[in-house]
């Protein structure tokens, strides 16, 4: 089995997780910028975080021969402070040419507030101006449906944005169709409680097809499972799906989406 982990917050994980992911067949890991569990006190905190994502973390992964890529932004959980968010967004362009940066993400909404929406639009503007791909976080639980609708409206309002170069993550049964019908890619996050279980993710694949869907663990400092993607692959096999289908979902699809960024290259074999 081979797979790509397209959404994992490895700065929150121990090195043993890299070893386990490699053992399970991981061919690359992609790390969107996110909330640290506490609010950073200044833009310098983000500068250091972006250095960690673009310098230190790829070197840590490389010790296991694992290619590490990242996405940069200020997470919507810290977007309520518009002044701070704008100062952080101003830092991002200097990092965009670094070899492991795939684009802008994970941007989006958290509580669906006006300030969060304003900062989402600033990120979309940044991505459009620099011709960057986008990875979108959709809100949690009761806020997801409304937030997904607001995010789709914001993305569709900017005609420079090509939906094929945008993935909207954390979809569930009530949001996946909205995302796919609008032409975007959709990501399913495998969490024990608050997002998709493996069985539900396979349900969604069976109902909506595997054309523009990927799976990720979004493992971070909270309850999450770094091997959730290969576990979901086992669930697909239990449900009678063949090896080619599984390979397409967990390797081929992320490869197809991410390869739209010329920097996303994997070693042969």
């Amino acid at each position, binding site marked *: 089995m081979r797979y790509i982990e397209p959404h994992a917050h490895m700065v929150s994980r121990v090195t043993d997780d890299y070893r386990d992911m490699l053992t399970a067949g991981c061919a690359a890991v992609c790390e969107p910028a996110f*909330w640290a569990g506490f609010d950073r006190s200044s833009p310098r905190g983000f500068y250091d975080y972006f250095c960690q994502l673009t310098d230190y973390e790829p070197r840590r992964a490389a010790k296991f021969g694992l290619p590490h890529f990242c996405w940069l932004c200020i997470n919507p*959980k810290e977007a*309520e402070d518009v002044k701070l968010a704008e100062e952080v967004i101003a830092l991002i362009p200097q990092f965009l040419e670094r070899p492991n940066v795939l684009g802008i993400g994970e941007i989006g909404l*958290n*509580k*669906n*507030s*006006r*300030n*969060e*929406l304003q900062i989402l639009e600033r990120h979309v503007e940044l991505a459009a101006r620099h011709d960057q791909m986008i990875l979108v976080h959709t*809100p*949690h*639980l*009761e*806020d*997801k*449906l*409304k937030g997904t*609708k*607001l995010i789709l409206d914001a993305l569709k309002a900017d005609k420079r944005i090509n939906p094929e170069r945008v993935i909207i993550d954390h979809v*569930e*049964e*009530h949001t996946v169709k909205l995302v796919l019908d609008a032409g975007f890619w959709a990501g399913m996050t495998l969490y024990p409680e608050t997002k998709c279980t493996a*069985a*539900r993710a396979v*349900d969604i694949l069976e109902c909506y097809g595997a054309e523009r869907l990927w799976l990720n663990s979004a493992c971070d400092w909270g309850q999450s499972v770094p091997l959730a993607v290969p576990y979901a692959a086992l669930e697909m096999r*239990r*449900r*009678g799906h063949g090896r080619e289908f599984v390979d397409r979902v967990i390797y081929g699809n992320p490869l197809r989406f991410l390869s739209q960024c010329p920097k996303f290259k994997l070693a042969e074999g």
Partner: protein
Amino acid sequence: MTRQQLLDLYFLEARARLIDVAAFLDRLDRAEGKADFRLEAFKRALGELQREGGERTDAVLRSLSDPTLEPIPAATTKAACGAWPGHA
């Protein structure tokens, strides 16, 4: 997969979760004090399980979701609680 195969694969797991839900509600019944809006939201979502036609998951998720469309004035918390208080 056939219905028989799906039952073989998932029945015991679903049965266990169903009993967990029953035990959760019994536990709340035994407890003292007032419940907040989440209990009513939970019971309303349970009603969606009676639907036919393969739309239960979508209906449960929508039942627990904020149905409004306007951004809120400001985020006063970062966390989501799993149910929308506006239905209460």
